[in-house]
């Protein structure tokens, strides 16, 4: 819903104090950083309030005013703290320029319903800031890991060199270590040997079963579904313990086959869920039409049904793959050192000899996740289009 609210310029009595309040807020950090809280708060408030008034009432031209402010604060930052100060300064300059004119021109009201009271408007924006903070919380760990993996030192924090953007502070040595260290390479190959086979098993069994489950008359459907989904619900440590006991009884503990079977079992619920979801929208008259025209069941399956449910099958497969590729608890128990996978190696690294190579591996894995996420998202849209739903 887009509200068409007429907007008009606001009075300085409104926007100058608001900008000053923001100035005071950021002044807190600079103040405490310099050891004088009150000076920071007052200085920030007065400076920003005054600048806001000057920009709107004396310069008036928005473009010039905002560029000027950015340049000014950036230079101030540079003088205080070098290149990091410059970057922070550019950000603050842009932000305060935006804030001042956003408030001054009344743009902040443009997209919200005209009947809101000032308090409601304030809540509207506070709410968005809170949500923004939560999104930052969601994404920060991933964003922090990436730059840290280029650290030239064996530290897990940003070194002064990194903060100064000194090229000497960055290096690819952790990546080099990952690609040359026998342990890590071994672990990677083990992961690549286990995950695809486990995925193949769960996808082939899972797709057949999902087709079976979507038939109109399935006896004990609920119970069967509960059993097939259970590997996803039962805590991993319990699955791992049970598999450890049982697989040692039948001689599969510590073998490649044991790990593959265990991972295939864990991946099955994901295949079942995604494929059944695709089959919900499947028009059964299509198979009848195919049969009517003389296709046998096998032809019907491969030429009519399979192409339509393929997106679901592939995304189920990707889920199964990532489950196996990320899995550590079960492999810890069911595998032996011959099946040490990438997550296992990371787990050891985190518990014992923590090395920044983990961050390089983590960055690579994030890259892989992004690729998989993109593929799944594209497939979902394609599937919805094929089934005649509007892609959302």
């Amino acid at each position, binding site marked *: 819903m887009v509200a068409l609210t007429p907007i008009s310029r606001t009075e300085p009595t409104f926007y100058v104090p608001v900008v000053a309040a923001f100035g005071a807020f950021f002044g807190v950090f600079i103040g405490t950083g310099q050891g004088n809280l009150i000076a920071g708060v007052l200085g920030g408030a007065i400076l920003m309030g005054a600048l806001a008034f000057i920009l709107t009432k004396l310069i008036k031209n928005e473009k010039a005013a905002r560029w000027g402010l950015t340049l000014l604060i950036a230079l101030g930052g540079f003088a205080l703290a070098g290149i990091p100060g410059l970057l922070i300064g550019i950000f603050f300059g842009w932000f305060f320029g935006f804030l001042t004119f956003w408030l001054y021109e009344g743009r902040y009201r443009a997209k919200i319903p005209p009947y809101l009271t000032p308090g409601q408007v304030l809540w509207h924006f506070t709410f968005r800031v809170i949500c923004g903070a939560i999104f930052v919380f969601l994404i920060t760990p991933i964003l922090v890991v990436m730059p840290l993996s280029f650290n030239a030192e064996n530290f*897990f*924090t940003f070194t002064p060199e990194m903060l100064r953007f000194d090229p000497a502070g960055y290096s690819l040595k952790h990546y080099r270590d990952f690609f040359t260290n026998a342990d890590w390479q071994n672990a990677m190959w083990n992961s690549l040997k286990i995950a695809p086979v486990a995925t193949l098993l769960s996808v082939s069994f899972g797709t057949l079963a999902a087709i079976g489950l979507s038939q109109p008359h399935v006896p004990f459907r609920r119970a069967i579904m509960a059993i097939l989904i259970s590997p996803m619900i039962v805590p991993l440590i319990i699955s791992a313990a049970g598999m450890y006991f049982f697989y040692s009884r039948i001689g599969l503990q510590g073998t490649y086959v044991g790990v593959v079977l265990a991972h295939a079992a864990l991946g099955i619920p994901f295949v079942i869920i995604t494929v059944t979801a695709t089959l919900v929208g499947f028009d059964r008259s299509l198979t009848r039409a195919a049969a009517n025209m003389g296709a046998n069941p096998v032809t019907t399956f491969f030429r009519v049904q399979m192409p339509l449910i393929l997106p679901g099958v592939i995304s189920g497969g990707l889920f199964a793959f990532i489950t196996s590729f990320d899995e550590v608890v079960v492999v810890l128990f069911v595998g032996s050192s011959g099946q040490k996978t990438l997550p296992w190696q990371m787990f050891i690294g985190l518990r014992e000899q923590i090395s920044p190579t983990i961050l390089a591996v983590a960055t690579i894995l994030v890259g892989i996740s992004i690729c998989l996420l993109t593929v799944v998202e594209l497939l979902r849209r394609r599937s919805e289009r094929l089934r005649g739903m509007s892609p959302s």
Partner: protein
Amino acid sequence: MSDAPTVQTAASSAAEARAADAAHTGPMLAADGTPLKKSLNRALRLQKVRALALIGPLLIFVLVTFIAPIADMLFRSVENEIVSNTLPRTTDMLAEWDAKGTEFPQEPIFEALYDDMFFAKEAKLHTRLGSRLNYELTGVSSLFRKTGRKVDDMGEVYQDQFEDLDDFWKTGENWNSLMASDGWLVAMDGWKKSDGKQPPFELREGIAEMLPATTETYVRFADFIQNQDEDNLYKKDPWAIVYSSLHADLTGQNSVASYTGPAAAELKAAAAAAPAFETVNFSEAFRDIDKDWHALDVWQTIKVYSPKYTSGYFLNAVDMQKSVDGPELRPENERIYGILFWRTIVMSVVITGSCILLGYPVAWILANLPVRQANLLLILVLLPFWTSLLVRTSAWKVMLQQEGVINDTLVWLGLVATDDRLALINNQTGTIIAMTHILLPFMILPLYSVMQTIQPSYLRAAKSLGATNWTAFWRVYFPQSIPGIGAGSILVFILAIGYYITPAIVGGTSGTFISNRIAYHISSSLNWGLGAALGAILLAAVLLLYYAYDKIVGIDNVKLG
């Protein structure tokens, strides 16, 4: 798949039958002349069979690779065969012993114990039993180990006397000529190691009636030598315990006097001398090895844990112990699992709560933004969801450290003094922060899908009727979003109480969950039964929640991404 033919047949036959019905009365017939009802039933049955045939392979696969292991774990949580398998006679005889009394067992039980310990020691099973019982009573492990080392000496009293009496009793060849059948002796004569398996030992006819105890012991000895050690039985000198049995036979009721087979003379001489032999008092001999054998609690423990199945592991898992008076609470300072279960539940509740707190606004804004923007923001939710768990955990480990990014930033901003850095890791705070982050997408996604279905016009209608923002939200919007909260909370809670990796890495000692204890029992302390019992309790809790989830949301409605 193509169920079209049957359905078509059914449909067309229904039409035909209707036409036919007008012409003549009687049951409706399908095209092929069978009654319609029967024909439809057959079609339905065929469909069911086909569906099951498609599901079958996976069902079997999951049953074998997943359900069987879980069943095995549940079985192990009550299984306790080791005591009665290792000490079969002792546990049999203990059945009559009054564990609640103040008398420790009498001589016959010690004799049985000697018997059991001897064979257990030869098979090296006594240390395993020792460690098993040590979980219930500290010190049993070393007691068994010590006894195993010295149990040989006890029988040697008889062995020495027999051997002093006549050199005949020294060698395995002589013993075998007495105990074994002629056929076996001939077969053994021609046997060489290269021939493979030894001919199985056969008893001489009549020997079992004459020397029952000796025979029984000798057969067990022979079986062990032939099948476990795979040694040449013919040349093997018997164990000390065989001599004790022989002494018992010769001093008791026997028919040696009328015996005429091989070694009759030696046997008769021994029978004559045996009553004068120095005897062993097993009860005292065991006390000499370790005075704990005359302690009541050792015998009580053995008796309490003699049944093949025990509730002992489960009692241990809830801070109780089995005693002669039935289950009782452990002393205050030994109760750890109650605290651990409670902590697991409380922390899972806190994590679920913070997920609701953080997830609700995000889901709300996703559901209320234009589709294009919402999809962009949804990527920010899905990216962590797709990122490896280990990656996210290591990210938190890096960020939360004393010298980590968060503390460094706080110090740089001047909010925290350098020497007063926040302890964010290796405690409950670390576990809660990291797990909230990891499980947040599982809250946001179900909430989002529920909120998408809530009409925004309801909220506007409420406001136009005079509700304040808060009332409109609380009375109109929130109740409609409760199914989402319920689904998300159960999902997050189920996942949280079973978590292992993240608490193990960022939880330290105070932030670990029951799962970490299970892993400890399985891989470090090797008390598998207790680990299995803890796992069974956790599993029961999860299945209960799973059932609730199924009732509220339905497992078919689980959505991914």
